[in-house]
């Protein structure tokens, strides 16, 4: 099993490291150009190309499919290059937003003609990083290395063009280097989206670059920090998805977001200049206190006002201190525990019958249709009875919480609101 875990993790991690390498560099330029959503727009235009290819009968990975995707990406790159000229009359970011929604809507309309369209759209969004193959990793490494070398050779005019974002009437040289950037950017995004999906590619592009710029304004240093953060977040996401048993793409996106929060914390509370450090720590402490007190105050008030509603904070307190049955009468407590036990028993019996029927599909004599109907009928009855017991448990828990609100809800609300008042008072007090 451990061997499988490592085998399943190795290639996605290799792909993530390669993606981090090229996307961080491109992301830094995207941030300098102030066109953060250009990535999403271009990825969506390339997804539209891939969708048109699928509807036209080409597989996404085939030459035809890649040609369609590249053609659409080139058109997207041209539109993005042209968008700088629009900056006189309309904000470039607004144009990019319109391009994104138009490409998304067009994709939906195109896939409407394909029976497997919904699956295709979902795949474009979330990707399938886990199933990347060795051939794909090799292809990515060669393609991205070539683009990386090209960008390294022409880094000066590229960076000059990205610095020139304020110019509403760009000269021909700037337009040319903009086009080079968006075309190569489009090739990278097109290739990455097919494996990692639009959401994860956005993370690879923006989050490491943001983390890098948090710590340094020098592009070389920012790039190194971004690479380190991107690799760490990718590893945390991929291995984290094994640990918490959840889809890799979604966990990796969350890991990137967490990396950004941690980097922000490190920047504000550890590596900030000495004169800012004390100030930041004091403000951070106050903000955290304010958040915690507000949460406790509102939760306590919510328990007092609506004891039968959902109460995540109260549930956590109950879990730590022993369930709501402490606030029931002895008779109610016995009913509460009995209902919970009966519900568990019914569920166990439903599971036993499920296994019995499942085994009978291939073991021993085949069950007759009437025997299967009987099993189904008993399972249905037990499930409904179990839900009845669950209703009793919920009802008694609501009764307990009606009493609990005065012992826990009210003190919680008082603690929270007094805490808020103290924090606000100490903030306003003259130093």
């Amino acid at each position, binding site marked *: 099993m451990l061997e499988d*875990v490592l085998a*399943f993790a190795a290639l996605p991690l290799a792909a993530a490291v390669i993606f981090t390498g090229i996307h961080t560099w491109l992301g830094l330029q995207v941030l300098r150009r102030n066109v953060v959503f250009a990535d999403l727009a271009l990825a969506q235009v390339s997804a539209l190309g891939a969708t048109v290819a699928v509807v036209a009968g080409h597989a996404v990975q085939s030459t035809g499919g890649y040609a369609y995707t590249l053609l659409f990406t080139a058109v997207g790159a041209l539109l993005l290059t042209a968008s700088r000229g629009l900056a006189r009359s309309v904000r470039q970011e607004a144009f990019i937003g319109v391009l994104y929604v138009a490409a998304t809507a067009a994709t939906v309309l195109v896939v409407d003609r394909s029976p*497997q369209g919904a699956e295709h759209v*979902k795949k474009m969004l979330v990707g399938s990083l886990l199933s990347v193959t060795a051939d794909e990793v090799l292809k990515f490494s060669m393609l991205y290395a070539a683009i990386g070398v090209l960008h390294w050779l022409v880094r000066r005019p590229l960076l000059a063009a990205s610095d020139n974002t304020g110019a509403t009437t760009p000269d021909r040289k700037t337009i040319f280097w903009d086009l080079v950037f968006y075309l190569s950017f489009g090739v990278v995004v097109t290739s990455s989206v097919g494996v990692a999906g639009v959401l994860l590619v956005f993370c690879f592009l923006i989050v490491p670059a943001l983390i890098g710029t948090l710590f340094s304004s020098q592009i070389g240093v920012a790039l190194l920090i971004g690479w380190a953060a991107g690799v760490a977040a990718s590893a945390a996401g991929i291995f984290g*998805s094994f640990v*918490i*048993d959840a889809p890799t793409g979604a966990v990796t996106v969350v890991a990137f977001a967490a990396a950004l929060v941690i980097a922000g914390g490190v920047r504000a509370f550890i590596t900030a200049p000495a004169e800012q450090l004390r100030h930041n720590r004091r403000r951070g402490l106050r903000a955290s206190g304010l958040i915690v007190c507000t949460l406790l105050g509102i939760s306590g008030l919510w328990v007092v006002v609506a004891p039968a509603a959902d109460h995540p904070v109260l549930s956590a307190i109950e879990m730590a201190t022993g369930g709501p049955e402490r606030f029931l009468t002895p008779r109610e407590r016995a009913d509460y525990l009995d209902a919970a036990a009966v519900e568990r028993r019914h569920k166990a019996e439903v599971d036993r019958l499920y296994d019995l029927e499942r085994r009978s599909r*291939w073991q021993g004599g085949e069950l007759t249709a009437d025997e299967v109907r009987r*099993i189904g009928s008993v399972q249905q009855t037990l499930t*409904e009875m179990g839900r009845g017991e669950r209703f009793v448990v919920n009802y008694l828990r609501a009764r307990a919480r009606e009493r609990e609100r005065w012992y826990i809800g009210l003190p919680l609300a008082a603690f929270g609101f007094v805490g808020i008042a103290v924090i606000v008072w100490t903030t306003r007090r003259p130093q």
Partner: protein
Amino acid sequence: MRSLGGARGPCGLRALFIFLAVSLAVLGALCAAQTAAAQGVRLVATTSDLASLARAVTGDLAQVETIIPPAADPEAFQPRPSDLAKLKGASVVARVGLGYDHWLDKLLQKHGDAAVNRGGPGYVDASVGIPLIEVKGRSLDATGRDGHAHGLANPHYWLDPANAEVMTGGIAEAVIRVAPELTEKIIANRDEFLDRLKARRNEWEQLLAPHRAARLIAYHNTWPYFARRFRLDIVDVIEVKEGVSPSPARLAKLAALIREQKVRVILHEPFEPEEASQLLARRTGAVVLKLAPSVGSMPDATHYLALFDYNVGALARALSAASN
């Protein structure tokens, strides 16, 4: 002879003309009646499987239409305005039920014709009378372990050919209720279809008999009825939650299970994402086999009987090849 012949000639000719005219009139009336019936009975089925069974029962006596296109994922289907138009004027509506085609309820409410709404003479819930498996309860359950987030039980019951008897029975009854004049023909059509089905069932069961208790993995929990009929052991499914890709920990667990239980074939459906199945196949040496979950979802599965011809044939070949 001549005079006789001459005397009888015009008479015989007239009689022949009269006979021909009467025959043509009767034939015309019969054709007109049949066309009227075909125009009169319009059956709309939510899936291609029900539509295929409806065609087997009604022959050319009814016009049969399908809502979900073949090869589309029925559990992710979103109806369009044109589907509402299909329901307009339908005399019979046949559905899978069990929450599988839950979107039909809203369409039927908008449609407003009581005859094809729940309880109406033209309403068919084909799941009624089926021996259901993996039953959960009457209420909706979002935490089902079988990969279906809705419904009473596993809804893929048409994949047991034995259930076609109950399904065609429900369809035939509804058609007879709305067009009683077709009773005899509908019953004859159904009997003829069930005879053919019985003969084919024996062939299918014989074809898979050498592979009894063969262990399989499926991407989606589509095949329990199929497994029950053909005595197969589906040890686990890849997609536990519908529409959510499996986690790497689950894939690692499945890879270990495939090796431990010597699973040779992974069942896959044409509209499902292939990556996870292919990844497991690469790691374990198992074969990914695409089966048709519905009529029309694979080119060879052109009708209900062909669906099993294809699925049983493909599975028997894959299992034989794997054991060799």
